[in-house]
């Protein structure tokens, strides 16, 4: 009862505070609960930190940002409803969602209403649908994976690869993109293993990998599943180089998998370990503020919020259509736009180009082995 | 048209090595009230279940209205004109008395289609009210059957058995657990129904007083075979019957 009353008061207060300064509303539609809460909550915290910074520095075009959160519950249908609600409540720009399966649904609503949407999703399909209002904060798997293809082929010298992937919208997107990459690099996929969402037992999958004759393994799953896979692979003595994209070398996976994560190499679009002072600084501040380390989702949220600021200021007014038009073909450089952290360009589909990194996990730490140019 | 409603020919049934029923035959004529009695384990329940088609006899045949009941499901047997009551309480507790009784008649009205698209009472409200009146349940018509007393529920059970106008009604221990006043009422109503409609009854019952006063003919089973047959008075004075009951 007391808790309820407190919550009620708190929300009433925040509502009043919101009304008092509701100058420009930005909606964060994220996976704050459900299976995707790990990704969505961090993304939201990244946005929150950037918004506080922006507001402290005078806001956007002199207006304070009113950040409103909407919980998609990691349910595509609900995310659609939440985007509708955010638009009803006159959000200027939408931020989210992180899970691709939600974004492909809710971006339809944003498009129908002409509201720009900055997404954290990395599935290739998102920018392939000709939606003029969707923009990424991290490039799609179809842009990231080719960088990995040449690494597997040239640096690892592997021509036979096994693929283990999560059989979800997210994993399937990565899987399909990797198939293209393998084909264009002359890499043969000798074993193709789909796994379930929330799968806990990877023994059979690793046993299959072991006898597949592959020279390297490409793994594309979400955090916990990646960690469970790595633990099982270590146990069975898989002994093959494991490569992946972003997730598998993330700090969360390293924390969960412990020593089993050592030796994993991965392409990473954004990482707190990047040899870029702005990112290191942002990550340090984030950790001090929230008590846990910033991952790629936190950085995406953070720079996404700054993107809204910079694009709006480039337009000069709060005009949704002009915002979307402006952003197509726009490049922002980190020198004049520090909040963007790294130079970034958007093409006319909303796809993003940026430098990225090749990392390896050594002694439980991400180490940058190479910086890869934007493509 | 024969007057034989139920014909039992050479029924035997054994479970494992135990012969529950041995070569039993008898006929029941229209309008008769037949009592089937016997000590525990005499095979009367087995015989009863053979008549209901629930047990398949090893040999012999049961015919109702000149049709064999072998392999017949309960619903089909009911359509053939066999109504029954149950030993345990067998009403539909969360339906009103009226609904219980309409249900008992509705499957004999029209087709599946008319039962979906036709009137919701299948045109049976008047008939059901008559039945309720006959069993003196008017004041309970709209009560939930489950909220009735035990004896009242027995009356509803009997009313349901009669609703479809059966030619043969099997009563499975109708007197069990019913208090004396209610028992007199039940007996009175069963008799009246038999008198008015000429319906044939077969009664299994432990309560001797009840059987003797209700039935017109009694068959006594012991160890799976008929040991006596006759009017209540004949049975009362039959030494074999007395031995079977007392000697165990």
């Amino acid at each position: 009862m007391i808790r309820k009353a407190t919550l009620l008061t708190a929300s009433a207060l925040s509502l009043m505070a919101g009304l008092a300064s509701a100058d420009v509303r930005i909606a964060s539609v994220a996976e704050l609960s459900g299976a995707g809460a790990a990704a969505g909550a961090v993304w939201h915290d990244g946005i929150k930190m950037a918004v506080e910074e922006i507001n402290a520095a005078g806001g956007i075009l002199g207006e304070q940002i009113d950040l409103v959160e909407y919980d998609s519950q990691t349910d595509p249908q609900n995310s659609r409803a939440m985007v509708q609600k955010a638009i009803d409540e006159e959000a200027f720009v939408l931020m989210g969602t992180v899970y691709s399966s939600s974004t492909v649904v809710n971006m339809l609503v944003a498009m129908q209403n002409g509201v720009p949407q900055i997404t954290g999703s990395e599935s290739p399909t998102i920018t392939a649908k000709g939606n003029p209002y969707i923009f990424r904060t991290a490039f799609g798997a179809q842009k990231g994976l080719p960088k990995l293809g040449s690494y597997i082929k040239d640096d690892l010298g592997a021509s036979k690869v096994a693929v283990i992937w999560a059989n979800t919208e997210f994993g399937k997107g990565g899987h399909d993109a990797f198939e293209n990459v393998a084909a264009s690099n002359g890499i043969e996929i000798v074993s193709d293993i789909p796994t379930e969402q929330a799968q806990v037992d990877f023994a059979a999958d690793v046993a299959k990998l072991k006898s597949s004759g592959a020279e390297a393994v490409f793994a594309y799953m979400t955090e916990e599943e990646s960690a469970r896979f790595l633990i099982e692979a270590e146990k069975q003595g898989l002994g093959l180089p494991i490569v992946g994209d972003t997730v598998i070398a993330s700090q969360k996976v390293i924390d969960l998998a412990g020593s089993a994560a050592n030796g994993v190499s991965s392409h990473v679009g954004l990482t707190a370990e990047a040899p870029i002072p702005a990112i290191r600084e942002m990550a340090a501040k984030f950790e001090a503020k929230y008590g846990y380390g910033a991952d790629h989702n936190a950085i995406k949220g953070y720079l996404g919020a700054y993107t809204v600021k910079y694009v709006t200021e480039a337009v000069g007014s709060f005009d949704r259509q002009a915002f979307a038009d402006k952003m197509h073909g726009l490049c922002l450089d980190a020198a004049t736009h520090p909040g963007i952290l790294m130079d970034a360009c958007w093409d006319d589909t909303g796809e993003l180009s940026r430098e990225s990194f090749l990392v390896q996990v050594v002694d439980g730490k991400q180490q940058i082995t190479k910086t890869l140019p934007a493509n | 048209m024969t007057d034989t409603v139920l014909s039992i020919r050479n029924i035997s049934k054994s479970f494992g090595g135990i012969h529950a029923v041995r070569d039993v035959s008898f006929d029941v004529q229209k309008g008769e009230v037949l009592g089937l009695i016997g000590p525990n384990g005499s095979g009367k329940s087995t015989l009863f279940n053979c008549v209901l088609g629930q047990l398949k006899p090893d040999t012999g045949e049961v015919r109702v209205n000149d049709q064999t009941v072998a392999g017949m499901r309960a619903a089909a047997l009911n359509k053939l004109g066999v109504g029954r009551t149950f030993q345990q309480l067998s009403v539909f507790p969360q339906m009103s008395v009226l609904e219980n009784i309409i249900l008992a008649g509705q499957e004999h009205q029209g087709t599946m289609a008319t039962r979906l698209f036709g009137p919701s009472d299948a045109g049976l409200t008047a008939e059901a009210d008559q039945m309720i009146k006959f069993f003196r349940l008017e004041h309970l018509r709209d009560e939930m059957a489950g909220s009735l007393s035990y004896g009242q529920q027995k009356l509803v059970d009997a009313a349901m058995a009669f609703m479809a106008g059966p030619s043969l009604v099997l009563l499975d221990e109708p007197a069990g657990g019913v208090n004396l006043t209610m028992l007199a009422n039940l007996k009175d109503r069963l008799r009246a129904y038999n008198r008015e409609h000429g319906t044939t009854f077969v009664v299994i019952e432990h309560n001797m007083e009840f059987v003797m006063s209700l039935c017109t003919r009694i068959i006594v089973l012991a160890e799976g075979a008929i040991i006596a047959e006759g009017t209540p008075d004949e049975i009362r004075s039959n030494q074999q019957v007395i031995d079977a009951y007392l000697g165990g």
Partner: protein
Amino acid sequence: MAEFIQILISGLSAGSIYALAAVGFTLLWQASQTINFAQGEFVMLPAFFVLALTVKLGLPLPLAIILAIFLSVLLLGAVFKKLVVEPMIQHGTLPLVIATIALGLLLKEGVKEFYSPLGQPFPSLFPQDVLSVFGAAVSIPDIANFVIAMGTIIGLQLFLARTRTGRCMQATAQNPDVAQILGVDIKKMVLYTFLINGALAAIASVLITPIYLAKFSNGEVLGLVAFIAAIVGGFNQIRGALVGGLLIGVIDNLSAGYVSAEYRQAVPMLLLIFVILVRPQGLLGTSEGRAV
């Protein structure tokens, strides 16, 4: 061959944990006709007790595990029976099923909100050394899990068969009315069943979580597997649940390895449907009577 042995051994190791959950499930069903839809969450939760005690309170691991088992016996056993099952048992099974579904949701959301939505590493109780058996990698935790789970179930079986209390519990499960006439304190016996279920869940939790990692949603998979194992093996037999658990562990792994990774979840389900339709009492169950 090595691959097959690997899959078989891994399946047995996982299956022994499923068996623990399934045995508890079976016990509750026998003692009180409770179909516990929160059984998976019961296995998920004790690991978080351990984490809370070690990480937040800084207790040493062995002490934390003992306390966690104690807490599980108390909360998932006694409190669950007192506050959820007891008031509802006379309403029939469906309201209780709904209540346990809600309880599962409550536990899951509670852990997520009050502990963490993220997966957590969980300390292993055993050294991580790996032995090679016919080319298959078998780790010490695999063997230990199998041995402890089997030992627990066999111990439980002995307890039920050899001790007076155990026999009273069996009598209660088989025929409560007769047991009462014989002077058995049925209420107490049913309570013991719930306490044992709490302990079994805690043991399963502590054994499985180092491999599965502690996450609020872990119960969804485990609960389903426990059902299937219990039914396939035989709802009214402890050894049924034991065999069912091992069987499902092996079949799940074999189907992932040799049938279809995409349809791996379907294979246990098809087995379940087949068993229910062809042999509803389960592979080892007896068709009549309930026996512990």
